[in-house]
């Protein structure tokens, strides 16, 4: 079989870094080929070259045996290569069909008018091919992220793509939606489309991919068949060493003080009567599907969004939190799932970001910055959290996701917050950095900080939590102990809908009293 794509000895440099060194890759028709590697390993660069976004410095790309030059995204499209980025590029005010055919709208009346009927018909045909039930006339902004992703795929298919590159397609999808996506991928595979699948989620790769190519430091480490390779082998290829997972110990926290208690939090449909307690030194895992209301609860407690009712008690005292400012003063920190939007001023340097919540501590006469003290503080945070950056004066946007996350953590540590909400702390972070973040969370807890960890990855919840709270549709549907809980137990509570909430409340209350 002639490979769809063959990449050989590809080099690419950016100012200051060699992103790719003699990289190799091969994609067969009808294959799902996973591309793995830590952040900065070069997988995105390699795929962006294939998609015509970057130009290669040296090396060869062959499409079905023929050597090609891919000079632009347009050229890639013409060759049948499509890429679906992690951040979707859709026009939210246009309809699904309008998005798919943007720039290629069917015309009528001698090309003067758009033919909306033909447009919707063509889109419907593609949806049918994907076995996707969706009205082509629906406005894209009203759809879930999962459905929007389907539209990106439909758009790629409308170009008759033979090669489909998907960058972390399930990052924002829940389990049901992931299953739906996989069904579509299998459908495309059966039609002979080759799919490059970039992801950090090991269980998914096992489920969907045929082969795995691992990259490290811009080089191709190797390509292995998925079926006969263990996850441990893949991880050790990625990091160049084997990672030992430390066994979890759940400390006995029953004597620890309750540092945060919330009772009957409410806000329309997003937060419905949520109550829980958090003890000193505890990691409370918040599990649930996307949109279950976990982020909403965290943001409401933090004062970032309003509440309609409920009580918050911090260290025994009832408090009113009306703004993040109030929350921070009470020692509550919130690390958003969307670091770039809510966590960092990416155009500013590392030191400025870390000092942001505690700037008042670094002032002479409450006005002038103590520049040297800020630098020293940032340097010690960089050393302590092992942040990879040339210096504390580096702009944050040039750092990798894992290092950016560490900067957000450093921010709150510098502020000395002892109640921390981590919202998806390892999203978009590679395996090695993930482990470091986990270690950091455990250290923080053992130092007596109380942590709420929101995560959509069940293995992460099970691995890290001392206790697990599960939410569904704005309600806390139950609490589970750390030991003896399985992914299935969590999923049951996470999918517990309205009709059974009576029972769920009972479970939740029970969970709290134990």
């Amino acid at each position, binding site marked *: 079989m002639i490979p769809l794509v063959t990449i050989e000895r590809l080099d690419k440099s950016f100012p200051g870094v060699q992103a790719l060194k003699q990289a190799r890759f091969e994609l067969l028709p009808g294959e799902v080929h996973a591309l793995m590697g830590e952040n900065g390993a070069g997988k995105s660069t390699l795929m962006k070259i294939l998609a015509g976004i970057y130009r290669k410095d040296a090396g060869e790309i062959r499409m079905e045996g023929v050597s090609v030059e891919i000079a632009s995204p347009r050229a890639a499209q013409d060759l049948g290569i499509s890429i679906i980025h992690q951040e979707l590029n859709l026009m939210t005010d246009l309809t699904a069909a309008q998005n798919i055919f943007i720039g290629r709208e069917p015309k009528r009346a001698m090309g003067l008018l758009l033919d909306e009927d033909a447009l919707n018909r063509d889109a419907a045909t593609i949806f049918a091919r994907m076995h996707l039930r969706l009205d082509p006339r629906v406005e894209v902004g009203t759809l879930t992220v999962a459905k929007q992703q389907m539209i990106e795929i439909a758009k790629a298919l409308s170009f008759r793509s033979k090669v489909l590159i998907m960058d972390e397609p399930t990052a924002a999808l829940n389990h049901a939606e992931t299953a739906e996506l996989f069904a579509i991928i299998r459908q495309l595979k059966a039609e002979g489309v080759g799919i490059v699948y970039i992801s950090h989620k090991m269980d998914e790769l096992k489920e969907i991919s045929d082969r795995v190519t691992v990259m490290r430091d811009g080089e191709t480490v190797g390509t292995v068949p998925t079926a006969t390779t263990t996850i441990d082998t893949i991880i050790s290829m990625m990091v160049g060493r084997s990672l030992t997972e430390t066994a979890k110990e759940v400390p006995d926290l029953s004597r620890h003080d309750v540092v945060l208690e919330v009772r009957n939090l409410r806000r329309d449909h997003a937060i419905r009567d949520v109550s829980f307690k958090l003890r000193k030194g505890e990691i409370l895992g918040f599990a649930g599907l996307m949109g279950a209301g976990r982020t909403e609860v965290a943001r409401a407690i*933090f004062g*970032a969004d309003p509440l309609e009712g409920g009580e918050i008690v911090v260290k025994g005292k009832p408090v009113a939190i009306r*703004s*993040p*400012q109030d*929350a*921070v*003063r009470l020692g509550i920190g*919130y690390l*958003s799932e969307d670091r770039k*939007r*809510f*966590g*960092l*001023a*990416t*155009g*500013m*340097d590392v030191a*400025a970001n870390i*000092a*942001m*919540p505690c*700037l*008042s501590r670094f*002032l002479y006469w*409450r*006005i*002038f*910055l103590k*520049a040297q003290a800020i630098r020293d503080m940032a340097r010690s945070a960089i050393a302590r959290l092992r942040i990879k950056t040339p210096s504390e*004066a580096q*702009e944050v946007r040039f750092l990798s996701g894992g290092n950016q996350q560490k900067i957000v953590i450093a*921010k709150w540590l510098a*502020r000395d917050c002892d109640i921390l909400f981590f919202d998806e702390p390892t999203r978009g972070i590679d395996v090695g950095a993930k482990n470091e973040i986990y270690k950091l969370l455990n250290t923080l807890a053992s130092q007596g900080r109380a942590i709420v960890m929101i995560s959509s990855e069940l293995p992460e919840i099970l691995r890290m939590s001392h206790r697990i709270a599960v939410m569904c549709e704005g309600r806390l549907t139950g609490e589970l102990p750390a030991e003896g809980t399985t992914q299935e137990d969590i999923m049951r509570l996470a999918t517990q809908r309205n009709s059974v909430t009576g029972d769920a409340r009972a479970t939740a209350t029970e969970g709290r009293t134990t």
Partner: protein
Amino acid sequence: MTIIAEQESQPVVKSAMLSQGTWQKLLAFASLIALMAVFSVASENFLQMDNLIGILQATAVNGVLAVAATFVIITGGIDLSVGTLMTFCAVIAGVFLTYWGLPMPVGILAAIAAGALCGSVSGTLIAKMKIPPFIATLGMMMLLKGLALVISGTRPIYFNDTPNFPVISQESLIGAVLPFLPVPNGVLILFVVAIASSIVLTRTALGRYTFALGSNEEAVRLSGVNTDFWKIVVYTVSGGICGIAGLIIASRLNSAQPALGQGYELDAIAAVVIGGTSLSGGRGTILGTIIGALIISVLTNGLRILSVAQEWQTVVTGIIIILAVYADILRRKG
């Protein structure tokens, strides 16, 4: 000129946060030197001390306004009211000094306080009431223009009862010490304001928050910073600086001219943009702004010496603005 540039660039260069703007600042500085070289070759009158002093004198008002606008633009906002606010403050000074016959320091403080107060109103409209800066300050621009006319009864207010008033901008403190360098006080005020502002932007919490607001306001808010408060402070400081500009222009004309002011805001914004401050916020320097203001003055002056019609001077300034921003875009791409 270079002496002052060095003094000022020190804090700027030290802060790595601003290093991104260095390139365009250098470009702007090189353009300024190139322009001066061209004009000095074209006309022997250009490099005369009198003419250079005249250029500086012409820069004073626009320079101070541009410094005021720089604060706001770094937060990602825009202030269209700086010109009419300047006039309003000049009228307030007139009311205090001429109508009410109060002592000069009171009038000076009143003008600056009026500017700060109006700035805080703009800031409150923007931060608390969430009115977009463009609209809020457009409203303030018209409101203040109208108020200035109402208060003054649409007639100029002369400062004949305050004999020392012209000293603010016209006489030369530097010239009294160094007779060969008769830099008028208005220019001195510009440089004092610029240096103080540069220190505020690079060395103080207010400055740090000014950049942070323009870089990612929501992230700053979620860091527990009272972003609304700091935004209002920025507009207040900016307004106070407009009050200083009002004093300079009133002193130079020895009168508050209520019909003046509109149009100054665009010159100020032009100076800021030519100086490399990003209109999307988060980046900018006072040194760049001052160079930007000087480029506009040198152009106007040089073209006038070469007897180019005023209409054409405006055309050239427009082209310079577009080129300056395009150069910045090219740099970002490269």
